[in-house]
């Protein structure tokens, strides 16, 4: 009886532990592509530990919201990341939140991050928050259209059911799924503040979004926000892996070996996702802020087209 709950616990810890590693891998791969040696893959863990140990400096007029927000953002992102199937499906708490609720949890995290950006009353916080909500205003509907398409395929919004339904050999290659894959990648790039939407490696650039919002954070607060950012990246890569490469997922009540295989497959998916992200980031230039809505508008239209295709194809 206790078995499934242990698996759930393992999943929660796994995403937390794997997230900095994934970020480290992306940074390493990017450095190698730029013919730099780059920092160790384990560097993000050291960074987090260093931040946690440092003294925290907060602005004089920071309110309680500024201090609570990092933990709230971290909690919402962690719960969302723990609910995406990674190496096993139908975990005991998977029914507590479906894909729509996961999108909602990420929206909660973003809501508080934008508010925290506005709390100090500096122009950089304002610029970041204002642009973040503009990007979200297009990215979130696009994400929901993607959810619609997947849900119409699987007759469910439950991620485990979706993974199972898309893993059937009968699914094959479908136009709507291809459209959705492209849309999901575009949304994932925007949501994670990656190139070409935002640059995670820069400060002091007028076009920055995410970094501008967290400019005033330091010490343990910054560590929580960084960890949440890493978790979010892991979440999106896991999501793409689970939905579009639904192989190697352990079923409910499978033997231990199946779970081990699931872990192995999951590690391979993460590594592949991370390297692909590094390649794309090295190949593309960042775009102007007001091109972003067009970029995401494409994702929205692709998602809408895929949904429409399924609506029309279903009842005829």
């Amino acid at each position: 009886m206790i078995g499934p709950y242990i698996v759930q616990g393992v999943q929660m810890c796994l995403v937390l532990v794997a997230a900095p590693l994934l970020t480290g891998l992306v940074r390493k791969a990017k450095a190698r592509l730029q013919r730099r040696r780059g920092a160790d893959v384990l560097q993000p863990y050291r960074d987090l530990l260093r931040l946690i140990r440092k003294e925290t400096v907060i602005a004089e007029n920071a309110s309680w919201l500024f201090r609570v927000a990092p933990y709230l953002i971290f909690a919402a992102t962690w719960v969302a990341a723990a609910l995406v199937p990674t190496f096993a499906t139908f975990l005991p708490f998977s029914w507590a939140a479906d894909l729509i609720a996961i999108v909602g949890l990420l929206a909660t995290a973003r809501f508080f991050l934008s508010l925290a950006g506005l709390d100090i009353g500096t122009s950089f916080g304002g610029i970041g928050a204002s642009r973040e909500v503009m990007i979200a205003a297009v990215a979130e509907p696009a994400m929901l259209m993607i959810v619609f398409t997947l849900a119409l395929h699987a007759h469910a919004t439950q991620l485990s059911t979706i993974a199972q339904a898309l893993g059937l050999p009968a699914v094959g290659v479908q136009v709507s799924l291809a459209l959705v894959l492209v849309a999901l990648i575009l949304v994932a790039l925007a949501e994670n503040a990656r190139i070409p939407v935002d640059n995670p490696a820069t400060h002091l650039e007028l076009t920055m979004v995410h970094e501008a919002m967290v400019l005033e954070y330091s010490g343990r607060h910054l560590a929580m926000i960084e960890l949440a950012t890493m978790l979010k990246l892991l979440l999106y890569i896991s999501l793409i892996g689970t939905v579009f490469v639904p192989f190697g997922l352990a079923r409910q009540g499978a033997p231990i070996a199946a779970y081990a295989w699931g872990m192995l497959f999951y590690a391979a998916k993460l590594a592949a996702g991370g390297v692909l992200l590094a390649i794309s980031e090295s190949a593309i230039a960042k775009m102007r802020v007001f091109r972003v809505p067009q970029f995401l508008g494409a994702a929205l239209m692709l998602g809408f087209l895929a949904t429409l295709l399924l609506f029309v194809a279903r009842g005829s």
Partner: protein
Amino acid sequence: MDVPTPAGASRRIGKAERGDACGYDDGEGVRTGVTLLSFLLGCVASLLLLGPAGVALPRRLASAAIYPLTALVCAALGSSALAALLAGRVEDVVLPLGVPWIGAHLHLDALAAFFLTVIGFGGFVASLYAIGYARHEEEPRRVLPFYAPFIAAMALVVLAADAFTFLLAWETMSVTSWALVMAHHERPGNLLAGHVYLVVASMGTLVLLLAFGLLAGTHGHYDFTSIRLAATHRTLAWLVLLLVLVGTGSKAGLVPLHAWLPLAHPAAPSHVSGLMSGIMTKVAIYGFIRIAFDLLGAPVWWWSLPPLVVGALTAVIGLLYAIVENDLKRLLAYSTVENIGIVFLGLGLAMAFRSGGFETAAALALTASLLHVANHATFKSLLFFGAGSVLDATGERDLGRLGGLIHRMPATAVLFLIGTAAISALPPLNGFVSEWLLFQTVLTSPLLAPWLLKFLVPAAGAMLALAAALAAACFVRAYGMAFLGRPRSPQAAGANEVDVWQRLAMALLAAACLLLGVLPGLAVDALRPLLRLVLGTTLPRQATEAWLSLIPLSARAGSYNGLIVLVFMVLAGTSAALLVRTVAARRMRRAPAWDCGFPTASPTTQYTPASFAQPLSHVFGAMAFDTAETVAMPPPGGLGPARFSLRSRDRIWELLYRRLALVVERIATRLNRLQFLTIRKYLSLVFAALVLLLVLLALWQ
């Protein structure tokens, strides 16, 4: 509900009845005596009497006495209506009032009981809030005579069971709320607000009058039972549906009939604004459901098109207005427009499913809509009260002159934050639940056979998704500008926390937001008698599901559990905080803001509401407002300032209202001649009209 009604017709109805009313019954409506209905009518009568009492009492005593009494009566009204809803009671009474040979038909069923619960609860918290808020009212006698009768009129609309009583109560509701809007007619803009409201309200009533005329047919049966029995002709029913959509939509704020709403709702005192936005718009939705779902009978699929399309458009357009609005109360009124759109979208889906024979899906859609009605009533009242408290403390409604209130008004800031998170559809609060249910409904709609719906429903789903995301953007802006940052005016810097009554009312609403979000299954279960009454089918019982999760269709298809999400979030957040505190350095220091090394002392360097909205209006504004931005830079080396100018026009106002006003004026000028005819000409006009009407009557029959 054991509260004695204070003034006037205080009837204490049989206790035994009340006992079994609380029992849970799932079957067909329980037809019993009229005990509960007469108790409710007693409440309505006492509310009506509290109006004149407000004038009769001495000036200093009036506010202090009327608002607590109103709160008590509303609490009795709401809780007994809730009991009636849970028990699924059906009661009828005909009072010898009104038109002599018709009488006043009154009817209590699950649909009426649900909306009465919303009215009772909304009236209760609004009155509670007003105990504190109205202390600063300079002219209490302009508000008090209309306040309690306004609530009574809303309750009567819901209880009415014949066209005459319905319209009478509807007009009373309009007139009393108009009087409340005009309470401060001397302030600039309020006269225009009252004027526009009066015009739209009379137009709405006229349209409803025509709708009831068509429903009653040539026999002239105006009570709802006869209308229900006499099946209306299909094409005629379609016309009735359109008229009802216009009539109730004008009161609820459907685009393009929304223009009065952002003018009138903010003009009223804040507790009344909350009632008008949170509750009165719901009474209009009740009117639509009563006529379109109950009186018109089984729908045809194309009936669903007007509410679906108009609802989806309203949801997005309302928010686009809200995003660029700088007045906090007007912003909230525009957001009401959006939420009304969401409700009508759900109602349209319910009609489409019902016509296709998908009863469970129809029940899901109706549940989502009604849950959103209850949710919106809670968080919109909360937000309007919050805006009222800000107004009370600073005298400002302009976001550009607020800021930093989280330091000065800590309790209001927390409660307002809960309201904004709820209205932005964030889990685990209540706004998310109804949006989640609506998304689930949209996802079951490939079942619908008509091709037009296959294109329109996904488009409506996309609009819904866009509205959800825009709402979050809108309320980040509203909260961030009013409560966060540094104060932008001396008034905001010197604000003080409001009194305990206002905080208590807001705290009750915030608790309701959380409870409805965490335990949505109970609310969905409470709607089961209503679904059975209106649709003849219900959703599976949710209260028996493990962990109280919400599973509308099947567990494999999709489920949501707000309680688990909340518990997980709290556990994750607190454990992270505790862990970090044990591992980490506990040192924390306050220092000047970093701001990339260039902190500036002046609060004017902060982002303003306009600058925050600029990217959004840049992306979405061209559609709705025909915006054009021009940047004039000085030539290279020039020392002149660069100028940025933004032009934006309200297209609906210019294209529709202004032109309509021109046409009306032109017609009126032409018809002016009719006022100066001779008596012979008048008599022949009357005669011609009579002949025309008789001919029409003969043709119709």
